[in-house]
């Protein structure tokens, strides 16, 4: 095994992965009711094609893509459509959602299985992926059929699978790599077949030795496993590319600019399931973890299951549970209620007990520069954060903003993690980005 590779910057938070990494994934029983939002991906929301009272089967399409960058949504159980109305979404807003009551039978639509995916043309496979509603399962939920079809003038040299899982607490990808390496590798081969790229890499942090061994055994000489240094945010797209290929993605550009496409390992497995078994993306592994739940673990959960039910299944909240976070502690979002559904991008449900929740007030910036050293993007969180705090961001011109490349910040939260003044720096960026988005809409 070669030496570990990494990027510059980054932090070392407490990982807390041993809470869940040792336990096998448990299949959660069918929920009695699912609420499936039509917006579970980046891009335009899907358009519902079912109405109240319709009877649907598991895997049936219930919403069609609403644009080029959009995705298909399927029913994750069989039963009757109860309502089609705006419901609470994990992202905080109310979003149109389809609520389906289960008939308890879980009768599937007829699945089109393909025994030899390599006999199909790339375009056919792309269509299957689009129909199956596959999105990036690392959390960003970018529709896969778009990612897999780079423009003709961009030459793709590398396909990289992201098995870094640098986010503390979460072990969903780790368990998937240990339990089902075959699907991941098969998915990688399908992606390679579609794009015609032969340089295949799988990046895994070295703290997951069991996963590295399992994948190595299945992968053979078809690709290369790259052991990565254990550091946050190692699994971020641009940082992963830098670590594996040595190339730096220029600001404001996509990875394909340097000839690389990155997929999460779970996305690769989902692509394999879609192509070989005809199964659309209706379930995913969710890590329910933290010291605020009684029995942390990894669960195979149908999309649309209520978070409250998933937590209930993992033993319920402990007495001192205080904060519920969708995703990991670094990039996840704190939510106010647990009556929200699990969606395609929800890799984790984290419950923190009272003593671990940060409620301290924050102070002024002392200009120590720790955030500059931590920023994996070599940006200047200190300056940007101060500008935004002073409310100056509404007066920065569009050009100035481009110079500051606020857009390039992917909100990993490293700056906030290291800040000795407890400043909510990444929250400032989040707010400013939302502000500029709303200005653009106007």
């Amino acid at each position, binding site marked *: 095994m070669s030496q570990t590779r990494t990027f510059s910057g980054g932090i070392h938070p407490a990982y807390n992965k041993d809470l869940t990494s040792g336990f096998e994934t448990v299949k959660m029983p069918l929920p009695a009711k699912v609420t499936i939002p039509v917006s579970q991906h980046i891009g335009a929301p899907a358009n519902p094609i079912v109405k109240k009272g319709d009877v649907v089967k598991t895997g049936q399409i219930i919403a069609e893509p609403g644009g080029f960058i959009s995705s298909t949504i399927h029913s994750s159980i069989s039963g009757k459509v109860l309502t089609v109305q705006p419901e609470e979404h994990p992202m905080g807003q*109310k979003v149109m959602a389809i609520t389906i009551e289960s008939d308890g039978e879980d009768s599937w639509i007829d699945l089109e299985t393909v025994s030899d995916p390599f006999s199909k043309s790339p375009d056919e496979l792309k269509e299957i992926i689009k129909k199956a509603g596959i999105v990036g399962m690392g959390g960003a939920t970018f529709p896969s059929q778009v990612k897999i079809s780079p423009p003709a003038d961009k030459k793709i040299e590398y396909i990289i699978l992201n098995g870094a899982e640098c986010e503390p607490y979460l072990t969903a990808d780790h368990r998937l790599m240990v339990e089902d390496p075959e699907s991941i590798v098969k998915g990688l081969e399908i992606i390679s077949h579609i794009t015609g790229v032969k340089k295949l890499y799988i990046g895994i942090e070295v703290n997951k030795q069991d996963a590295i061994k399992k994948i190595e055994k299945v992968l053979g000489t078809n690709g290369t496993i790259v052991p990565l240094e254990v550091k946050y945010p190692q699994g971020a797209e641009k940082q992963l590319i830098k670590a594996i290929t040595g190339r730096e993605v220029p600001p404001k550009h996509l990875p394909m600019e340097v000839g690389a496409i990155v997929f999460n390992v779970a996305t690769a497995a989902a692509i394999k399931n879609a192509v070989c078994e005809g199964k659309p993306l209706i379930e995913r592994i969710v890590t329910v973890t933290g010291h605020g739940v009684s029995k942390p673990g990894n669960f195979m959960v149908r999309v649309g299951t209520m978070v409250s039910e998933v937590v209930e299944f993992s033993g319920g909240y402990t007495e001192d549970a205080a904060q519920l976070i969708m995703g990991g502690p670094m990039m996840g*979002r704190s939510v106010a209620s647990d009556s929200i559904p699990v969606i395609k991008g929800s890799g984790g449900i984290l419950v923190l007990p009272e003593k671990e929740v940060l409620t301290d007030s924050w102070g002024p910036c002392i200009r120590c520069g720790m955030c500059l050293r931590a920023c994996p993007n070599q940006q200047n969180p200190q300056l940007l954060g101060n500008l935004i705090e002073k409310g100056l961001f509404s007066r920065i011109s569009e050009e100035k903003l481009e110079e500051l490349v606020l857009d390039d910040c992917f909100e990993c939260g490293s700056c906030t993690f290291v800040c000795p003044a407890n400043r*909510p720096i990444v*929250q400032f960026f989040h707010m400013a980005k939302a502000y500029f988005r709303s200005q653009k809409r106007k």
Partner: protein
Amino acid sequence: MNEILIAVLILTGVGLVAGILLSYFSKVFYVEEDPRIDQVENALPGANCGACGLAGCRDYAKAVASGKDIPACPVGGPETAKKVADIMGSEAGEVEKKVALVKCAGTTERTTRRGQLVGIHDCRSASLIGGNKECRYGCLGFGDCNEVCPVNAIHIYAGGVAIVDPDACIGCGLCVKACPLGIIEMVAVSRKLHVLCSSKESALAVKKACQVGCIGCKICSRKDSGFIVEDSLARYEGTENSSDAPFVCPNNVIVDTRVYSTKEFIESASAMEHFNSEKETYKEKERQEKAAAAAIAAEKKKAAAVAPKEVAGKEKDEVVPTKETAQISSVKEVDKKEEKSDQISDSTPVSNSGKED
């Protein structure tokens, strides 16, 4: 003595030369400027608030003087408009002073809260995660509007809801732009009835989230046709300002600013008590009126029951039929249509099938 004389002479000399040069150049390089710009600028309030959409009062004056057709200064109101019109020698359009209104009465104790906000305490940030109230249209109370207000007319009292002081408000509209939820509206000062709610959610969701939310029941629009209910939310656009309207609202969402200021209506317990007792009196009066009306109706019914049957029969004949019966009757009458055509009008055909039979 000599030194002083020399200094004075030099300075006077320099002053003279400079003065001559300056007056000469001011003639040569004179920039023609419309004198009305200064006059208009002097007539404006001078707050440089930017509510007109231009960069300050000078810009506005320039735009007016150049003859651009732009709306009158919203802050100055009719007086300023008249002054400007006099300077420009044109007719002043109808300008009504407008003030800001925060359309939410959901104080802390009246609303269901969700979660506890940690981190940045401002509305823009809080709105990103859906706010700290169950209601997505409820005032967040972190005061983004207060921050931009040039005259400090917005206050957040104990209830945690921003309230505009209509006397202090100059109507610049900056708070409307600052509110991330878009629940601040500019309303004409002549409007006395306001619906203090912005929630477009269904009645069930509103009931769950807030005690003083508009559920879109449309009772107010029956009382005063100036109320318009859309998306399960009422708004007032009438001019009648019916003083009974606030009493018919089941959730006490409508404020009559002739009786209570918005601040009293939202914050003051005694004002609410007074309102409730007034409402009770109104309801009692309405009940009595209803009972009286019912009594009269019952009397009439009795009278009708004892009245001769022929009268009743005649009345029946004059009843306008539904479309179907009209069609049937017209089919039946097809033979005699020519004779009867003058009796059957196109829009409301009168059935006389009874007589035909």
